[in-house]
């Protein structure tokens, strides 16, 4: 069993973090944050205070209400005894030999496995990065980013730590790097603000397994995660993001990626947990021949709500994007997909492809799918499609005619639908664990005695 260690640290933040909470936080950071960081926090907090949490009147939040987040008082994240957490790391991790562990948003070197870092790869905590190269850390953390919103501002204002990852020019990092974000159990709801800043030098390659998980399903916490990635010319980032938060948790994340000439960003977002999960993914294809390939699967049930907002900014000619998201919605679950594609003037010979397919397994489940195409260039290839449907009756009949009952046949087809996305994950231990999880969740595991 895992010991419940609940050393609550810092001042509680109000239902909507107020000035007092922020001042207390800044004071606690004194001596750790250089001036530029304290200023950046103050700016971010001012931006948040001005606008507050978004409401459903905001076009981007039309289908997703964050009222429950706004109404909850989230305390600062507890600091559990790291030694007690190792069983959870095995259950919730990706199983990569190279691993960074963040507990409640804080880099835990003792739980991480970074002894055998491949040449050209550096991984450091915020504190380490500030000590080693403060200017470098500043550039990496605060490079000007589009898509600032209330949640990215909150992360900047209140994040206690960060993982800074750099791959040197030409470094082709073979083994994947796992960043496991674990949220623990506490007496009261708390907020954690995991943050990753990543830069790949020209021609560098890296696979990042970005896992977000909780321990017990009734843990109430709010993960306000942020990842920024800069891909140099010709760099390749494979980003696998697995969200398995506690069923009572809130997860609002943003990933902001910028790809230079010939760089490629390939992502697989798997969203399984959380009472509310919102993932914003903003990709800027900034220079010629940058490309991205985004895949996603959200598989939710009960009262869960999963929202994916993607925004691909084709800012240069000959840029390519491909995007395929799938949703499986059971119970009263709600799935939201909004795929915005912007082709800027002059971004000729651009091609963009988008699809979103949803499987509704119950009458009260719902899917909202909105493509948003804004095309300001004329030599462009753009395709998009979205579907919301039930399982195919012909397929169900065929399967049943072979002796498999309706429930199991539904499970089999649901598994097949979702596993198509999971099957794209290259790293076998994670792929197999997620496949197995889907197999069990859909009931398709029956008849497959080992």
């Amino acid at each position, binding site marked *: 069993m895992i010991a419940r260690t609940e050393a609550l640290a810092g001042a509680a933040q109000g239902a909507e973090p107020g000035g007092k909470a922020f001042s207390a936080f800044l004071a606690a950071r004194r001596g750790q944050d250089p001036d530029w960081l304290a200023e950046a926090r103050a700016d971010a907090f001012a931006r948040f205070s001005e606008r507050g949490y978004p409401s459903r009147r905001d076009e981007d939040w039309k289908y997703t209400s964050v009222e429950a987040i706004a109404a909850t008082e989230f305390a600062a994240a507890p600091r559990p005894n790291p030694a007690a957490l190792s069983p959870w790391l095995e259950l919730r991790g990706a199983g990569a030999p190279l691993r960074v562990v963040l507990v409640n948003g804080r880099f835990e070197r003792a739980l991480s496995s970074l002894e055998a870092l491949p040449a050209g790869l550096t991984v450091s905590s915020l504190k380490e990065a500030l000590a080693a190269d403060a200017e470098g850390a500043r550039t990496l953390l605060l490079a000007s980013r589009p898509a600032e919103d209330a949640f990215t501002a909150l992360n900047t204002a209140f994040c206690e730590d960060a993982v800074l990852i750099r791959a040197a020019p030409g470094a082709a990092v073979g083994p994947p790097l796992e960043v496991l974000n674990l949220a623990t159990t506490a007496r009261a709801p708390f907020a954690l603000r995991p943050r990753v800043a990543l830069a790949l030098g020209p021609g560098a390659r890296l696979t990042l397994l970005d896992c977000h998980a909780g321990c017990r399903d009734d843990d109430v916490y709010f993960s306000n995660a942020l990842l920024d990635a800069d891909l140099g010319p010709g760099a390749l980032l494979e980003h696998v993001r697995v969200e398995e938060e506690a069923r009572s948790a809130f997860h609002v994340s943003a990933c902001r990626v910028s790809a230079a000439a010939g760089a490629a960003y390939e992502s697989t977002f798997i969203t399984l947990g959380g009472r509310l999960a919102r993932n914003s993914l903003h990709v800027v294809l900034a220079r010629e021949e940058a490309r991205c390939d985004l895949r996603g699967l959200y598989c939710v049930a009960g009262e869960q709500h999963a929202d994916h907002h993607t925004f691909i900014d084709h800012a240069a000619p000959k840029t390519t994007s491909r995007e395929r998201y799938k949703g499986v919605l059971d119970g009263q679950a709600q799935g939201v997909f909004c795929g915005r594609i912007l082709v800027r003037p002059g971004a000729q010979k651009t091609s963009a492809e988008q699809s979103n397919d949803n499987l509704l397994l119950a009458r009260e489940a719902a899917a909202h799918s909105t493509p948003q195409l804004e095309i300001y260039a004329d030599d462009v290839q753009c395709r998009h499609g979205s579907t919301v449907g039930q399982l195919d*009756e*012909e*397929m169900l*009949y*065929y*399967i*049943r*005619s*072979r*002796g*498999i*009952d*309706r429930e*199991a*046949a539904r499970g*089999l*087809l649901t*598994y*097949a*639908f979702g*596993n*198509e996305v999971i099957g794209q994950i290259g790293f076998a231990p994670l792929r197999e664990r997620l496949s197995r999880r889907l197999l069990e969740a859909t009931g*398709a595991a*029956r*008849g*497959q*005695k*080992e």
Partner: protein
Amino acid sequence: MLKITNLQARVAGGKQILNGVNLEVRPGEVHAIMGPNGSGKSTLAHVLAGREGYEIIGGTVEFRGQDLLALAPEERARAGVFLAFQYPVEIPGVSNMFFLRTALNEIRRHRGEEELDAMDFLALVKKKMKIVDIDEALLKRPVNAGFSGGEKKRNEIFQLAVLEPALAILDETDSGLDIDALKTVAWGVNAMRSPERAIVMVTHYQRLLEYIVPDRVHVLAGGRILRSGGKDLALHLEEQGYKWVKDETAGVR
């Protein structure tokens, strides 16, 4: 084994297709059903397999002493009915092996037999592969997805060989097969013949019946069995076509 009495069925809320079918099949027998396009052969096969969307408006079907029409499709399969589809359904994302092992283990479980583990299943598959000469690569691919017409038919017979039903209904399994494939499939079906098993084949071609010699041949037209006979009836049809059927059914109406 199978006793169909005055079976009448229609598309739910629509047109009547079966107008009183009578057919009795005993264990060990092979029956061929022939008849013009649209005469109701596939409908009969699907009504026996339990497809939804048909309404039974009269008659009975008894299978090994049970009321077959009262069972769900999966219960019929577990009781020993197998239909090789005229148009096998593609199921992307589910591998043939995974699918078949799930099916076999469901059937075995309901028969009170031990489920097969991965090793034993593989051994069984290897044995059955030889019977229908199916390419191992096909077994690893998703069920029927992107299979050629002939590969799909061969896969149906492979499933038949693995599931070993008491009653096999083959709906135009010979259509779309090249000459060599036809021989292989026929050989596979013959290998499945046994005193405990009955086979009902729907076909348009007398050629198949040269390889799988039937005990009885029936002509289904206008939703009923118009004529029954020995294997010579098929030869007769090959020469005469179905013009006489039109005359006879016209006379009836």
